[in-house]
């Protein structure tokens, strides 16, 4: 490392997305956070070139309508910061529903979060009106094929999402209804959404019931989580 080339510092920020804020999309969320970084006055680095912007990276997109417990974003800094003060400053410049849970500093090279984060846990709250047959979960796990049809514009595509579902468990909720917990792999080839898995269990129409609530509890790098 030369004298000019300072050590690479990244702030890794863990945040939650709550309440009505689930109705804004991934890009809108990213924009709100990057504006908070700017307003908070963090010594963030910007990219060079004709359209300079913050040197930041976000995890895999959270679908519209989902809340999230633990998402990550990285922003490169020109110098270290006090992480407690940074957390407070960020929080002061965010809309209702975006909650900063922690800020930590990483020195040295980091992989882009979009590529590095490869697994996510979900909790799906299913209201009592929707029955989940006790054997449905077992059957799903026993099979090696579970096909959903995705439409993009005019085009339809059948995708086997079974291979992305690492874990699926159903629990009765004390007040009635069911709680599903699942772990889903995020791979360069693709992934499954929690809503798709629910649709395979209860049918697509029931899965769209307004009482269904889906939260992505956390998104992480599987090897690192296992090492812990």
């Amino acid at each position: 490392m030369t004298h000019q080339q300072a050590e690479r510092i990244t702030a890794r920020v863990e945040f939650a997305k709550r309440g009505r804020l689930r109705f804004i999309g991934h890009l809108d969320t990213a924009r709100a956070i990057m504006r908070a970084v700017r307003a908070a006055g963090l010594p963030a680095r910007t990219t060079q070139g004709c359209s300079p912007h913050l040197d930041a990276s976000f995890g895999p997109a959270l679908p519209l309508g989902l809340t999230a417990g633990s998402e990550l974003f990285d922003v490169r800094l020109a110098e270290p910061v006090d992480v407690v003060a940074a957390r407070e400053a960020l929080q002061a410049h965010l809309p209702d529903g975006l909650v900063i849970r922690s800020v930590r500093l990483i020195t040295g090279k980091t992989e882009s979060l979009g590529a590095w984060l490869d697994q996510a846990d979900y909790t799906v709250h299913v209201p009592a009106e929707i029955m989940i047959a006790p054997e449905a979960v077992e059957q799903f796990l026993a099979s090696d094929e579970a096909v959903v049809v995705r439409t993009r514009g005019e085009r339809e595509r059948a995708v086997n999402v079974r291979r992305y579902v690492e874990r699926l468990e159903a629990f009765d909720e004390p007040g009635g209804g069911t709680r599903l917990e699942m772990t889903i792999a995020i791979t360069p080839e693709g992934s499954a959404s929690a809503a798709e898995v629910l649709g395979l269990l209860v049918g697509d129409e029931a899965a769209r019931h307004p009482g269904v609530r889906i939260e992505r509890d956390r998104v992480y790098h599987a090897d690192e989580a296992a090492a812990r």
Partner: protein
Amino acid sequence: MRPEQLVAMLEAELLPQVQKPGRYIGGELNRVAKDHAELDVTLALAFPDVYEVGMSHVGLKILYELVNRLDWACAERAYAPWPDMEERMRERGVPLYSLETFTPLADFDVVGFSLQYELCATNVLRMLDLAGIPRTADERLERGGPLVIAGGPCAFSCEPIAPYLDAVILGDAEEAIVRVLETMREAKRSGEVLSRPPAREALLRQLATGGLGVYVPQFYRITYGADGGVAAIDRRFDDLPLPVERAVVRDLDAALYPTAPVVPLVNVVHDRAVLEVMRGCTRGCRFCQAGMIYRPVRERRMETLLGQARNTLRQTGLEEISLSSLSTGDYSRIGELVTALADELKADATSITLPSLRVDTYSVELAEQVARIKRTGITFAPETGGERLRAVINKPLRDSELLEAATAAYSRGWHLIKLYFMIGLPTETDDDLAAITELIAKVSAARRPHDGRRGGVNVAVSCFVPKAHTPFQWLGFGPQAELRDRIKFLRERVRSKAVKLRFHDPEKSYLEAVFSRGDRRLAPVVAEAVRLGARFDDWSEHFRFERWQRAFDAAGVDPDAYAYRAFPLDAVLPWEHLSPRVDKAFLRAELERAWRGELTPDCRTGGCRFCGSICDV
């Protein structure tokens, strides 16, 4: 419906089913939500277009911060829901609500609409309907409901929707709004039941006679003549102003400017911070309504602006800042301001936009200053092709100046230039249109000496609409068929692949002409158009001309008479009683000079022309 119920229904049943639900959830950074139980007066600022358009507008941001600084009042926001949301709200019985506290609009003391363009009239009615507020001022006098007021540039030609409004603020609303709310507060304190007609009328009369630039349409009687025009405009009480004169901020530098504006949650049209460097323009382009109704020119000091820029960016984190005014290139210290800002903002990559520059090489130098951070587009508005016609509209510009500016832009790295033109201007001939095509070709060729290639030119062509309170207010529009011929003429002659031509829809311009020149007899047409499904008429995807034709037929109104009629110079104009403080004699003298092709210099440099505006020149 109570706010908690409303929120529950929104979250469970409405938001998951509509496009871009982020428009409807509020909770943005810097929004102000107060407890209504602790306030004397509540104001809903209603913008009759979708969130992304309304959130881009500066005027309401000023009023929002001004009112929210009062400890006894609040200002909250509401926008027109997109049709998919409107439908679901109607189905579910969810009323139009404010984004701050999810309070139904009908529960506010005052609902204020911002009228930015003529074709928002149907959305105003739809928002009242969706809020469950009686539509007309007469109905509200009988049945009660919030005080429905309006402001913005179209306040000066608001007659077509006047029956739906209780009061209209003419001019700089920040000068009047607090007094309006104070009057409301006193009326509420007096214990009078404002839903009773005498109390409501007394309140309106107080507003109308307070010297605030407040126009109360129901206090003015319009009589129509045998020729179809307005014969007379009378006031119902002697103490009412006639004409009503607009409110004017005298010292713009001292006026409040919001540095903690609400930061939108979804990508909006102008997603950036705005510095209002000055207000008003005295170049005197004869087609331009803004150049007449915002007189005189008032600048903010450079030090004030730099401070406001710093504050705004610190409180919003926005990545772009726009230097806004009717003609930013005319700001007296524009070069210094741009250089100082660019120096300061380069470090954190905050870009600067200059939306309204003059056509000259100096403008290109300014654009290059801001391109140090991020290169944005470059736009010139020659308005028309020939120098003769430019003298008629009083926008003096030599073709050579435009070409020099274009050459400078191409040689400094721009590949694309945007040009604005108008067709259907008074005295325009085929020669003038041919001159437009030649000019476009020359601009494109101006890149040749630089790198041997043709320069890209994006051309936007609009149809001239004669606007109230301008020297051309007496003239008729179009006609439509002729405008279509002119569009064809241009299309056939501009063939270069480097040039993209875009035209404003002549049917929409026609309707704008009807409404910007109209009177109160058009009010039933708006109601009929709403009944037939009209909304978001400024959006091409929603605008249906045949719907309007049916509405005119049903109401028995001939729109041609409104769009095409030329008013005799001694006629009573439908907007005669609404004064932007520019004298009719001045406008008339300007019209006569137009016919003679005589230029009138900017009064800031060329001496006073006695336009009647209050200023220090």
